């Protein structure tokens, strides 16, 4: 039996509050005051989770957050497959983000597709002293010569670029002109900007607006015959093929997906998006900006959806269909019905193994809320959650649609706090990232990486739900967790001495 089911809501609330107080004791006074704003216990009926968010991380703590470069190159731009993304600055940023996000794609890598290559200007001291614009000019020529089938280039600024005042916009304009209007996009995503990767998402969205949409103009002709059922998937990075297991459902219900952002995406798809009839938005955090822009500028409505777990998938399919005619609404019902046997079989198999198990989450983007439904579909309960780089509107969505009363909420949780929380609440499963994985496994807590799906996936859609269920089962019920204590050290199992 989980802790949550053995206690009443007021008891859990009191325990969680006490836990927060306890954790704050370790800090110097000033820091405790700042961190206190980010930790809370959710109360039903409140408009958000009662935590401050999107504020600077505290120096000297082990924050799990990344930077603007990670948000732009690592998340938004990197997966656009037919463009060359230059990590402009020193070698490290590109190296550490090389191939680490599993944005699956189809294409001939190194020839017409470039996602899993690391292009960098590899800044040296002289580039810092004299500036890197000249090098960037030459570098673009070299990209053109060696990779003639690239459809565009982006320049992802690392920290030094902004500090030394390089004019990457001027370089982009001049080079674009030189190469017959080729799309060359400068992105000011220096790592010191903002408080996390979140600003990098925003900056990347703005770069799409300014350097792709504006370049083509609102009246540009689509390269295909439009239909009334054209939609674009926004904010799916195709981790382990997520966007594919989502797209197939949309197509099965009768919609036509004209663009996928940005997992397995291409420049042509970015350009086509303003012709969509509806933008459907999965990762709200990373791409609400461009969706709002398209709504204002091109009049394209957008709707959020959640393709984790059958309950939310069903809800989302109906919601998406509501923007269209009966044909699509019937299509949605047909899809729901088609997959019901799979859903039933997955739940019949895995729910008995997972019923009542508790989960604590800490992830980025949409996952701290979106996956809760999928856990609940399997009979599991999320007792704590928080965002690496969420904003207040993320916590509003979480409070209003996802979490239960008394759930522990921790914004920008650091290593110290997270460890104490897990130690105390003893969840059956923690879902977070690579930096947290081994910490909790050492503690004997089953763990799944919920950024990369622990190299599994997809987790989106009905096909993905089966993988999700299997993976959670394998984590929680792995026989290894019964081997933590050496038998001679396990005091819970007294052994008879020979003399007795």
């Amino acid at each position, binding site marked *: 039996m989980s802790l949550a089911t053995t206690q009443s809501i007021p008891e859990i609330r009191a325990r969680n509050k006490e836990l927060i107080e306890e954790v704050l004791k370790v800090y110097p006074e000033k820091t405790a005051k700042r961190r206190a704003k980010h930790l809370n216990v959710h109360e039903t009926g409140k408009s958000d989770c009662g935590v401050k968010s999107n504020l600077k991380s505290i120096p000297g703590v082990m924050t799990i957050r990344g930077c603007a*470069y*990670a948000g732009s190159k690592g998340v938004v731009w990197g997966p656009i497959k037919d463009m060359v993304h230059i990590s402009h600055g020193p*070698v490290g940023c590109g190296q550490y983000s090389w191939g680490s996000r599993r944005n699956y794609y189809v294409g001939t890598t190194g020839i017409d597709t470039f996602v899993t290559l690391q292009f*960098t200007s590899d800044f040296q001291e002289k580039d810092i002293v004299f500036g890197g614009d000249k090098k960037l000019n030459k570098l673009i020529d070299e990209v053109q010569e*060696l990779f003639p089938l690239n459809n565009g280039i982006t320049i992802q600024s690392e*920290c030094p670029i902004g500090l030394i005042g390089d004019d990457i916009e001027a370089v982009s304009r001049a080079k674009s002109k030189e190469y017959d209007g080729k799309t060359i996009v400068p992105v000011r995503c220096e790592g010191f900007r903002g408080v996390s990767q979140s600003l990098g998402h925003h900056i990347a969205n703005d770069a799409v607006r300014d350097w792709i949409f504006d370049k083509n103009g609102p009246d540009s002709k689509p390269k295909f015959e439009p239909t009334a059922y054209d939609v674009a998937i926004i904010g799916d990075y195709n981790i382990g093929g997520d966007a594919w297991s989502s797209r*197939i459902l949309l197509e099965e219900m009768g919609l036509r997906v004209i663009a996928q952002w940005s997992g397995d995406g291409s420049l042509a798809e970015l350009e086509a998006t303003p012709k969509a009839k509806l933008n459907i938005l999965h990762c709200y955090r990373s791409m609400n900006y461009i969706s709002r822009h398209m709504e204002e500028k091109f009049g394209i409505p957008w709707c959020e959806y959640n393709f984790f777990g059958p309950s939310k998938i069903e809800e989302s399919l109906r919601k998406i269909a509501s923007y269209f005619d009966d044909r699509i609404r019937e299509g949605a019902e047909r899809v729901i019905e088609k*997959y019901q046997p799979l859903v039933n079989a997955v739940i019949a198999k895995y729910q008995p193994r997972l019923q009542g198990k508790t989960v604590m989450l800490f992830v980025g983007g949409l996952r701290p809320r979106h996956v809760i439904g999928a856990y609940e579909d399997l009979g599991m309960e999320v007792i704590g959650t928080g965002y690496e780089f969420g904003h207040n509107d993320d916590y509003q969505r979480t409070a209003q649609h996802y979490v239960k009363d008394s759930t522990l909420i921790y914004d920008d949780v650091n290593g110290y706090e997270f460890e104490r929380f897990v130690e105390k609440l003893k969840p059956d499963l923690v879902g977070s990232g690579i930096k947290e994985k081994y910490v909790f496994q050492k503690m004997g807590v089953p763990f799944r990486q919920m950024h990369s799906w622990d190299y599994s996936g997809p987790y989106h859609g009905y096909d993905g739900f*089966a993988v999700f269920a299997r993976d959670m089962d394998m984590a929680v019920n792995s026989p290894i967790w019964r081997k933590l204590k050496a038998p001679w050290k396990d005091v819970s199992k007294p052994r008879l001495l020979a003399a007795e």
Partner: protein
Amino acid sequence: MAQSAEHVLDHLELFRGPEYQQMLANKKAFENCRDSAEVERVREWTKTPEYREKNFSREALTINPAKACQPLGAVFASVGFERTLPFVHGSQGCVAYYRSHLSRHFKEPSSCVSSSMTEDAAVFGGLNNMIDGLANSYNMYKPGMIAVSTTCMAEVIGDDLNAFIKTSKEKGSVPADFDVPFAHTPAFVGSHITGYDNALKGILEHFWDGKAGTVPKLERKPNDKINFIGGFDGYTVGNLREIKRIFELMGIEYTVLADNSEVFDTPTDGEFRMYDGGTTLEDAANAVHAKATISMQQWCTEKTLPFIAEHGHEVVAFNHPVGVSATDDFLVALSRISGKDIPEELARERGRLVDAMADSSAHIHGKKFAIYGDPDLCYGLAAFLLELGAEPTHVLSTNGNKAWEKKTKALLAGSTFGQNCHVYPGRDLWHMRSLLFTEPVDFLIGNTYGKYLERDTGTPLIRIGFPVFDRHHHHRSPVWGYQGAMNVLVKILDKIFDELDKKASLVGRTDYSFDIIR
């Protein structure tokens, strides 16, 4: 629908089904794809000498470099000291990257904090971040030492670590006598091996030269101990343990400087050990009295060794010694310096390695190899291949310098088997791709990223280096010493035999060579 609860298909198989294949084919209509014949034409062109020439003439663009940046090396060295928390002064995203990178390789937690500098720090400097940051990490993580290094951001704006740490101590962030060694580790100079060197030197300097002017410098009182430095090494867990075993067999008193072999290999038993093992701070200080210091990697300790030499004891550098002669040289040096005999047990290990090489050399003799990685590792592996009668053909090190090139060329020139080998300092894995197409070899040795080269060029990859993300637990087995060389030998042979089997596995066509006994 291919998916089922009874046989769950993940990404590996799911998308091969007809419905997904159809979907992906439909998607192409929106992708502005290139004509497949054109893609094929360009692909063939990239294999040509003409493309290689263009590729090698690039000056500004780096593609798939085999190096990381300085701060990673600083973090790697810092955690080798007892209860030491690495503190990286700069923007926080970098630290997330170092921690992820180390965790992905070692499958272990990696603890490190950042001073989380943002725009305001870029304008006003990061002093306040340092003051608050040191106070917070000192209180939260109860370290025994905080080792500070920098990112490129802090270096570009010119933050002065020495002054900042002094001020932080004055403000009470940490006690005045708390150890906070530091090193400037700009990411736009050198690579992770430079960062290792700088951080290690910074820590020794702190203890030996008066803790940033707060106490008198240590006066050297020579003793019989030998210091040992591993360098930045993806096999640090296995290698350091092997070296300690050798020291103990020889009865030598030693100090491993930056011993991170425990912290990257803690047990799973219900407890998270944020700090584990490591060189004690006392030993780090007392290391100044040692008789000699041995570095296993010359180019990882370019500044540290001269610094140590200035303090009056002998320093000796090796180049990631792998193989019989390299281990011989290491042991002979150990014996000479310590005055201790090399025990029979090690002689027997040597004999077993020679035995194994004799048993298997027929399968390796004359095979061509390409190697890439850190300069010392490349040198060490090349030397071992020469011993095996293999022919190193391309040796490439993105962070190798002119001195490395010269020394490696001399090594190759000294062997019949090295005559047709070229050495490539400062080149990257896209250069290597051209080399593998235009001057093919039988096997490639390098880190995980070589799998793209293996796929593109068909050259089988033997994974030795850092990082190895896509295979598990290699770091636990040593590559140094006679036993380490045995591990490397087996790894190479396994790949050779796997390839033999693969080529001989077509039923009824090539399977006459599908041998049981080799």
